[in-house]
């Protein structure tokens, strides 16, 4: 179905001690997308999330799921229709991995065999070896436990997934992997996911929509990530986004429109004569590529024109080549990656490659900057393809 699946309407939560954790929050959480609640610690993210599955009862407003008020549903049935993933996974330490994942299916009356089959299927889906099925949680790493947590939440195929800082307790490399895994799973399953984090980078990476909350549970801004980065609602949001939001916003621009110059490339067996016809304005170097078309490194253009590329190629010794560094995939990577390649390049020029890693051209920082300006001026007229930029 299309349209809002979860409607949060003027919801408030005042705890018995008088703390107002959430104050008049309204959000339309779109169907089949990841909506991130982000904000500083204590701003009411967990409270908001837990009001959706009624682990915390709201004290004002209402929450509708598919148009139906959650207060009118039996609470345990409501909860079983939503997967819940938390920091440190919260696995049942006394149950095997397969039994952990099968908890809700078993409660829903599935047979042992069917629940087990489902557990196996889900272990594969979240990237766990099924040989771990009979292990206990203590035998798994933190990242693996978190995968089990995700699998357990998905077990009964709920339409909604609530995730509360699910990846905050694992190290950055593992976290990155888990985020990518989540995006992959979401592509396959199309759940409505509400994802809580205090990490704005994580929000931008996984969110289709981002709700920035400020202390006291008030909504500061609700926008897709690219829009959030380009036009923060106020100084507080801007501050929260960090100093380099402009650069990070480039993640949402593709490189299809970026023109790269194939003239700056020479084959490693080119003669002096062949080289002399190659030149790129403003570039004192040429990119030498091997017989397979992959970049080998940068060589001084004037020297190549005298002696041919072979002298600078593998035979002449790689010492004469400057490293070409990171290359970006033309049309696939974002402008942010292209700019990064150019900044890191010893010549100041970025190398563009195709899907097979063959060099297709070179592009300067100035040219990338021009493309950024063009993309910005186009904003609003052309929709940004968020999915492709990830």
């Amino acid at each position, binding site marked *: 179905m299309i349209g809002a699946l979860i409607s949060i309407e003027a919801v408030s939560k005042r705890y018995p001690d008088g703390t107002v954790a959430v104050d008049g929050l309204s959000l339309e959480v779109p169907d089949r997308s990841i909506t991130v609640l982000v904000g500083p610690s204590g701003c009411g993210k967990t409270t908001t999330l837990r009001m959706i599955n009624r682990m915390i009862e709201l004290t004002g407003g209402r929450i509708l799921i598919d148009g139906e008020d959650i207060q009118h549903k039996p609470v*345990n049935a409501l909860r079983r229709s939503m997967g819940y993933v938390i920091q440190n996974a919260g696995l*049942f330490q*006394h149950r095997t991995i397969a039994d952990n994942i099968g908890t809700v299916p078993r409660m829903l009356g599935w047979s042992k065999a069917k629940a087990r089959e489902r557990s196996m299927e889900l272990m594969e889906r979240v990237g766990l070896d099924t040989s771990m099925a009979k292990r206990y949680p203590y035998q798994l790493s933190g990242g693996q436990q978190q995968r089990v947590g995700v699998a*357990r939440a998905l077990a009964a195929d709920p339409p909604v997934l609530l995730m509360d800082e699910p990846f905050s307790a694992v190290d950055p490399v593992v976290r990155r992997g888990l985020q990518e895994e989540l995006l992959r799973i979401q592509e396959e399953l199309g759940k409505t996911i509400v994802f809580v984090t205090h990490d704005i980078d994580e929000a931008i990476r996984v969110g289709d929509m981002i709700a920035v909350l400020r202390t006291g549970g008030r909504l500061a801004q609700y926008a897709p990530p690219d829009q959030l980065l380009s036009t923060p609602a106020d100084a507080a949001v801007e501050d929260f986004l960090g100093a380099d939001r402009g650069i990070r916003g480039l993640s949402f621009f593709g490189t299809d429109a970026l023109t790269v110059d194939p003239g700056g490339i020479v084959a490693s067996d080119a003669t002096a004569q062949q080289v002399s016809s190659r030149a790129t304005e403003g570039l004192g170097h040429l990119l030498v590529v091997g017989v397979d078309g992959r970049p080998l490194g940068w060589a001084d253009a004037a020297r190549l024109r005298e002696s041919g590329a072979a002298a600078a190629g593998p035979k002449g010794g790689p010492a004469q080549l400057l490293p070409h560094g990171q290359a970006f995939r033309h049309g696939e990577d974002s402008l942010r990656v292209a700019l990064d390649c150019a900044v890191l390049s010893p010549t100041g020029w970025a190398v563009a490659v195709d899907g097979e890693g063959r060099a297709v051209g070179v592009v300067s920082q100035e040219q990338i900057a021009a493309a950024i300006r063009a993309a910005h001026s186009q904003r609003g007229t052309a929709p940004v393809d968020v999915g492709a930029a990830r």
Partner: protein
Amino acid sequence: MNNGFFNMPSDLQHSYLGLIGLHLQEALLPVAIGLLLSLPIAQLCVRFKWLYPPVLWATTVLYAIPSLAFFVVLIDYTGQTKTTVVIPLSLYSLVVLVPAIVDGVRSVSPETHAAAVAMGIGPVRRYLQVELPIAVPAIFAGLRVATVSSISLVSVGALIGNQGALGNLLQDAMTFHRPIYAVSSVVTTAVLAILADTALVLVRVALTPWLPKSGRRALRGRDRANGDAGADRGAGKGPATGEPLDGGTTDVRPTAGSTL
């Protein structure tokens, strides 16, 4: 051996094995009763936090009452019977078992608890399927202390006649000037305690295949899983003892002294 170690004086009206049987009955029945009482009491203490301090206080006071005082009161109602011994011993076991179960149930990490609630697992099912199983190591640690101390405490039954089981042998050692009876009593009681303790450890191991095998990893795992709950337990209670059969986890050992 025909020197009195296994040959019981006739006034006890029991063979050696008969005395052992009686001793085990009088020692283990109170632990079983104590456990049955502790489970609901502990659950109430977990539910209503304010209840725990007064309950703890009450169990401690009960433990401080000498068994002789109990006997004086009880003997009018229950006479010189096993029941008169079993009642105070049951009450004594609460001082160990109630905190053991409360700590065990509280050792369920907030995340695990939240996950169970979020999965729509109701309170009863949550108690039986999540909290109690996770509390098993702590409960067994309590059961071990309660059992061993109960086995030693049975001897006080000698104060009301023939209800001390192996304890009566101590009296007879004095009455008949046969120190061998005392040796038999002490050694047999000790062996019973060790055997009962070992049996409990074996049952615990069988019930908890999910505990980390080595003590060190167990502690680390608990720290990660339970946040500061583990630290809570460490404070104010005796140190955990690392035994080979026990994972070194959740040893709850209040200093159980004899109230003889």
